């Protein structure tokens, strides 16, 4: 028998009305979910967060493979690690912070009530698709926000699947339906509608400059971050061997697909020879001038950076350029004699190629580091390897970066995975980088607080807020479907169910897993 088909005689899918209709519907569903989510108490919230973290952890490997296969960027093992780090360890980092309950400050006679943003529109990149999704979803859930994720088209399939997996886990753990949604078909026109909609409370934009600027132009509040181009200064007081090892570790981590990777190394004449030698020991290949020209031509087209090279192995890139390197090569060091517009290699390189510049003295080194960030990556990251804290201070105070990591791999350090900085996949580039936030973005950026403030006058006493909380109603009781078997009328408040605790994983197991993961990152 012939089967009925849906045949669209009049296609309006590209019209503004259709795009707005689609955007409105997704966002309004999210607004409903956000409203209901705000009725949840902290236990119910954290149960959902833990369940989603567990799902992210369980699927870390599968999505790492999928992301590398779909995008060609990065290293499966490293992506798996990032996906795991943005699961339980991320949650543990914020475990003791309370984004749900009121906070009473007796001394200042102020009570603070957390107010979630509502609906967050998250744009996620192709370079770190799954880790960014894990991270954004978890910080949204910690703060009882709803999130709509619009993935980068180059990582569409794995991103859509991953968001759906986490959304299912959230729902199963008791989250409101629609609290996490994904745009399966993210056209530019649709994303612009989503960004411009008054139903979006804030845009959390991680990705290319054009997209971030577009978020800021949308008239909706935005937390967008600029690109990186981290200078790393190896000072004469550095432990040279350790510095080289850490930098190689950092640059080869996921083949520099993270925007916090070192881009231009600056060192001093007196360190040069020793440092080259240490790099060689650590698995770097030192390019000659001819190799460097080949790299320059390959990596930088007239249109900009060659995206083919993003997250590729050093040996793969060398082969593409016709440079013969040992198979054990982990990064390529390209010596340069200029920094600035005339030297493309002093721009951001999301691949294991590190420009290598020798300065005459510290003052020149700092001046060159400033020039690197003037060219690109303002407000992002910088690194220094030095044992003299005065040098570190002078460097950090001079460069226009909001995180300067010291004696640590910059990739992991600036992203908060090998330092005490907030673990993040959205690095605030602040005012230097034309962004609204200069810190690593975390859950705290996704809520504002209503502050109840009392009279300063000592004669006026502060209220007794001990044991007082907001009125958490919990999930909305399900309305009846009268007459449908099993509907059983309305159960009102008694129907309110609370999400259970994380199944199958004890706290000890969790700690053990986290410790293992952290050890892997910190191994250097």
């Amino acid at each position, binding site marked *: 028998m012939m089967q*009925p088909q849906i045949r669209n*005689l009049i296609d*309006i899918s590209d019209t503004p009305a259709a795009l707005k209709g689609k955007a409105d519907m997704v966002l309004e569903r999210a607004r409903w979910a956000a409203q209901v989510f705000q009725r949840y108490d902290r236990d119910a919230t954290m149960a959902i967060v833990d369940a989603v973290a567990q799902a992210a952890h369980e699927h870390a490997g599968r999505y790492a493979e999928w992301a590398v296969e779909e995008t060609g960027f990065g290293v499966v093992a490293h992506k798996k690690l990032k996906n795991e780090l943005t699961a339980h360890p991320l949650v543990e980092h914020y475990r003791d912070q309370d984004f749900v309950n009121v906070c009473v400050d007796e001394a200042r006679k102020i009570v603070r009530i957390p107010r979630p943003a509502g609906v967050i529109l998250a744009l996620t990149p192709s370079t770190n698709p799954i880790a960014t999704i894990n991270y954004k979803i978890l910080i949204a859930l910690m703060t009882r926000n709803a999130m709509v994720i619009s993935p980068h088209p180059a990582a569409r399939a794995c991103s859509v699947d991953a968001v759906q997996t986490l959304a299912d886990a959230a729902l199963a753990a008791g989250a409101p339906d629609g609290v996490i949604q994904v745009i399966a078909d993210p056209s530019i026109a649709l994303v612009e509608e989503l960004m411009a909609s008054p139903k979006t409370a804030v845009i959390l934009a991680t990705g290319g400059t054009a997209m971030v600027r577009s978020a800021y132009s949308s008239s909706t509040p935005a937390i967008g971050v600029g690109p990186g181009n981290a200078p790393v200064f190896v000072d004469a007081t550095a432990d040279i061997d350790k510095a080289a090892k850490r930098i190689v570790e950092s640059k080869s981590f996921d083949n520099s697909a993270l925007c916090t990777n070192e881009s231009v190394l600056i060192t001093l004449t007196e360190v040069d020879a020793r440092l080259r030698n240490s790099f060689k020991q650590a698995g770097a290949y030192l390019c000659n001038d001819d190799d460097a020209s080949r790299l320059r031509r390959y990596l930088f087209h007239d249109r900009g950076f060659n995206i083919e090279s993003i997250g590729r192995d050093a040996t793969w890139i060398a082969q593409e350029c016709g440079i013969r390197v040992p198979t054990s090569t982990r990064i390529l060091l390209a010596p340069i004699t200029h920094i600035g517009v005339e030297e493309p290699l002093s721009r951001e390189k999301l691949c294991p190629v590190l420009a290598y510049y020798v300065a005459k003295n510290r003052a020149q080194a700092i001046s060159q580091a400033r020039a690197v960030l003037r060219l690109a990556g303002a407000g992002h990251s910088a690194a220094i390897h030095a044992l003299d804290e005065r040098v570190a201070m002078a460097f950090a105070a001079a460069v226009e970066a909001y995180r300067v990591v010291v004696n640590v791999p910059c990739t992991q350090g600036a992203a908060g995975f090998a330092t005490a900085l907030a673990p993040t996949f959205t690095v605030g580039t602040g005012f230097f980088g034309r962004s609204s936030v200069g810190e690593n973005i975390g859950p705290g950026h996704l809520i504002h607080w209503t502050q109840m403030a009392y009279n300063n006058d000592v004669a006026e006493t502060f209220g007794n807020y001990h044991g007082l909380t907001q009125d958490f109603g919990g999930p909305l009781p399900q309305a009846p479907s009268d007459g449908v078997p099993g509907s059983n009328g309305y159960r009102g408040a008694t129907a309110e169910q609370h999400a259970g605790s994380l199944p199958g994983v004890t706290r000890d197991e969790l700690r053990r897993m986290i410790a293992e993961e952290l050890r892997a990152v910190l191994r250097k």
Partner: protein
Amino acid sequence: MSQAKLEFLDRSRTFWNPGKTQDWQDMGIDLVIDRREGYYLYDMDGQRLIDLHLNGGTYNLGHRNPELVEALKAGSARFDMGNHHFPALARTALAEALAACAPAPDMVYTAYGSGGGEAIDIAIKTARHATQKRKIVSIIKAYHGHTGLALKTGDDRFSKLFLSEDTQGEFIQVPFNDLNAMEDALRGRDVAAVLMETIPATYGFPMPKEGYLPAVKSLCERYDALYIADEVQTGLMRCGEMWACTKYDIEPDIMVTGKGIGGGLYPIACTCIAERCGGWLKEDGFGHISTGGGAELGCIVAMKTLEIVQRPEVRSMVSFISDYMRAGLEKIMAEYSDFFIGIRQHGVVMGLEFNHEQGAKPVMKHLYHNGVWAIFSTLDPRVLQFKPGLLMTQADCEEVLRRVEIGVGLAREELMGSLRRSA
């Protein structure tokens, strides 16, 4: 009231409908709808009303839904009503779209009317042809429209006026939720079909008892009658599923959808017919002719309506709206427990029950004066029809609840004075 509105109402009385125009004035509702957008209506004097009447789901997706307007505009660049005698692209496309989401797997045919009444007439004619029997059983106080056959199935208030009530004993009415009465009506095996609103709307949404509808369907099967589901007000996701009858485990033989299917922009109604019941379509396909029925522009709008209501976001929102409204109404009911005594609900199909035989009328009036438009049940004025749209925002739902709390309080005061509320 503005001078302009006074003058307009005079014209309305003179040229359109004196009785209807005046009745509303007598009920304290001086509404003349002018501009409309989303779930808002604007009176010609400017007052905004949140529409919870929606003309029985006609405006499910809001007034002048931009996607539907776009579909209609784009459609008019290619189609018009079409020629009803010929195979037609849009009619067949809509029929396929309906078959794809029909409540029964063998429901392949769609015959078209220009409104729900005509579609009911088609359903009745189809059942009579298929069974070669004449009798039709419907529910007392049921409402299926005002056309020739549909009229006879409903309350005699609308048929006797026109000397059009059934005089042949072909239209039998039984009480809702009464299986014995239903079986008595069917026992003679001379009934062509039972015509059933899944939830009788104009009767104030009394809810079918558990097991009632499936038992009626079984009785139909036992006594060789067809089951016609009137899903005009309950279909199209209003009960949280595409068709409410499926929630009650009914696979009807014939189903009628109307009102909302045309998106409030182009009137159209559809009679979906199981293949085995559609014999007349083969025997004499010209048997029912309707120039306006299934106009192709209406089909274009209807296809877009079907596409929109089947989006996953809509299912989710219907559930939120149902739960949220219920939670809010429960609070209001607790506050006025001696007056507001019950809520009938299935999804966003809701009836609010008041402890006074005309109770819903003053509630309607006070809601009207507080910016909400919801209409009483014509055939049971104790009940207010409360019908939020499928896409209502949380903010609008909160607005409605805020205003309902005020309106119900004022209505209670009007009817019961400032007596002490019972605890």
